[in-house]
């Protein structure tokens, strides 16, 4: 199959908690904004809609995509919803990629959203924890930050890292989010006089001094619970060239992989032992990230050991500062011997060789689950088509001359992970 698949355009709404706009109005806003970038695009161009939404618990509405689809006037058009935990957005993009790659459709809309502000944050944590194995994990008082902390602590020890090393990503992503007026950090902290972080450039000390969530993670090491929506238009190359010249990017690689639901079940799993050697990934590494990353690198012709040099800009799933750090390793950007230096030399900061989460990431922009992976793809696209300076408040958070981008979306305790390589055409 030689057909190239592209992202012709896309946009995200602001993310916030709380925020007062319905899922269908967020979809309409995203499409209107996409039309600003691709004036040629109308709803009549759509062949297929892929909806990306994680939890119907938040809206207490089954098949909520049906509300949105007919609101947009799309009756008759085929539609599906994809749900795959935190990797819902990435999985929906993957579904749209397959749909175009197959030759069946030329113009596929992907809209994702979540309305987590419909419940309190502690109730929201319990809802999300229903994606862990409820029989054995949620009942024991576990919620995702706790499972991630248990994995992060072992990773920290075995890779000779410190709490401060994790805090680098927490500080970085929030400070970049201060240059993005759609980001939750910008809306609820940076421009909010009631926030302790009002007009504040964060430091490592701010992260270290924030309250304990689950050792070694503190409040600022964790992502945000949000309401928000995001839209991407996945098309054939012919469609993109004709209707979105100057705006589209190519999906040069796409990988999707899976791991155990319970993190404790991956210390000796036959499938991984066979693929990567006995004992991998243990409870420290994200094997599904490594695998899906390798599939995407192979498709895009990127050598694993040169990945950090070849990727010019990345948006990765920083649900926690620790998971961002673990992902550096899973994507072959660093290894056990050099991860400490990789972090301390700020290789993923704007001045480093692989600027990561300059749109703010999940810790800065927010994490309305179904929208997140799509937001990450759109934010990566903004550098590859040079629209970042007008999408962000300044060109401070614009990665110039970027040709290759990486988008990562991640679910469960590393249970489903997708990676995409985007290229400037």
């Amino acid at each position: 199959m030689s057909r190239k698949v592209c992202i012709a355009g896309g946009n995200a709404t602001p993310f916030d908690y709380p925020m007062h706009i319905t899922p269908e109005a967020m979809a309409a806003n995203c499409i209107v904004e996409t039309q600003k970038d691709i004036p040629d695009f109308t709803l009549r161009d759509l062949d297929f809609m892929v909806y990306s939404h994680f939890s119907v618990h938040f809206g207490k509405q089954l098949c909520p995509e049906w509300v949105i689809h007919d609101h947009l006037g799309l009756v008759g058009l085929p539609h599906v919803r994809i749900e795959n935990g935190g990797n819902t957005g990435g999985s929906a993009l993957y579904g749209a990629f397959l749909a175009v790659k197959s030759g069946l459709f030329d113009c596929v809309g992907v809209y994702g959203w979540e309305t987590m502000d419909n419940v309190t944050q502690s109730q929201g944590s319990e809802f999300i924890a229903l994606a862990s194995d409820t029989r054995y994990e949620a009942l024991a008082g576990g919620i995702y930050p706790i499972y991630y902390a248990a994995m992060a602590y072992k990773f920290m020890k075995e890779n000779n890292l410190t709490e401060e090393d994790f805090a680098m990503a927490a500080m970085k992503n929030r400070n970049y989010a201060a240059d993005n007026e759609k980001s939750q950090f910008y809306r609820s902290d940076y421009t909010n006089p009631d926030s302790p972080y009002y007009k504040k450039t964060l430091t490592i000390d701010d992260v270290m001094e924030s309250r304990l969530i689950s050792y070694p993670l503190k409040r600022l090491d964790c992502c945000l619970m949000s309401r928000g929506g995001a839209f991407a238009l996945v098309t054939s190359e012919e469609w993109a060239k004709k209707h979105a010249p100057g705006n589209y990017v190519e999906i040069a690689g796409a990988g999707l992989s899976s791991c155990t639901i319970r993190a404790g079940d991956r210390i000796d799993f036959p499938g991984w032992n066979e693929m990567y050697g006995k004992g991998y990934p243990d409870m420290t590494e994200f094997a599904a990230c490594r695998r899906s990353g390798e599939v995407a690198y192979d498709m895009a012709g990127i050598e694993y050991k040169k990945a950090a040099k070849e990727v010019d800009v990345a948006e990765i799933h920083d649900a926690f500062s620790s998971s961002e750090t673990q992902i550096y390793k899973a994507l072959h950007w660093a290894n056990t011997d050099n991860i400490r230096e990789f972090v301390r030399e700020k290789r993923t900061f704007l001045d480093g060789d692989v600027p990561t989460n300059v749109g703010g990431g999940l810790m800065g922009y927010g994490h309305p689950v179904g929208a997140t992976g799509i937001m990450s793809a759109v934010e990566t696209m903004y550098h590859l088509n040079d629209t970042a300076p007008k999408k962000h408040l300044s060109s401070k958070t614009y990665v110039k001359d970027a040709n290759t981008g990486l988008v990562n979306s991640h679910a469960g305790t590393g249970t489903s992970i997708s990676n995409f390589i985007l290229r400037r055409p």
Partner: protein
Amino acid sequence: MTDKRMHKIPGHNDVKWDDKNSDKFRGDVKETGIGFMGYDYDTATEQFKVFLHYDQLYYWKYAEVSKLGKGFVDGEFWGTKCPKCGDKFFPPRVNCWNLDCNLEKSDWIKLKEEGIVHTFTIAGWSGKSSLKRLPFVLAYVIVDGCNTAIANELRGIDPWDAEFGMPVKVVWKPKDERQGTVTDWHFEPADGWKPGPMNAEKERMKELCQPVIEWVKTMK
């Protein structure tokens, strides 16, 4: 001929529930279904919001894993073992995970109620139903040499004293309070285990725990 890897499904009228305890722990919890509780309006921005409460009783059937639930009520740990490759599971898997074993049905085996801490964390925040227990240690423990680790609370210890690789034992709730779920038991340090001396990292953990301890004291 029935393939012996198939799980048996009882007939439609075969399950009689002769040992019924369905309301044993209910207290005054009522099943109310859906209901609207009130509304808010903001005049300046013309925003309207309603308050919805929803509550539903579920019937979780353990079915072919029922031995686990009954074991918990009886104070016994039942895991499974693949007769082909010998991999041992807790939580139990009723078909082997090894693709070469081709869904071999595993055998139930009684496990020793002891294990080793594989990794752990000190929780300072949790879901609504667990807030009053904070701060607590959640440990992933390899029970009786299994090929998997199970998560549960590690008690009987100052949170900052937990260690990787420490030996633990299982401690049961009183029999009358057991519900057939993982909350029927927790881990505690094995008899004779002593924590190592305080060090900088433990001091840091202790310092992080103090505001959590104070916060929990203020809860009703």
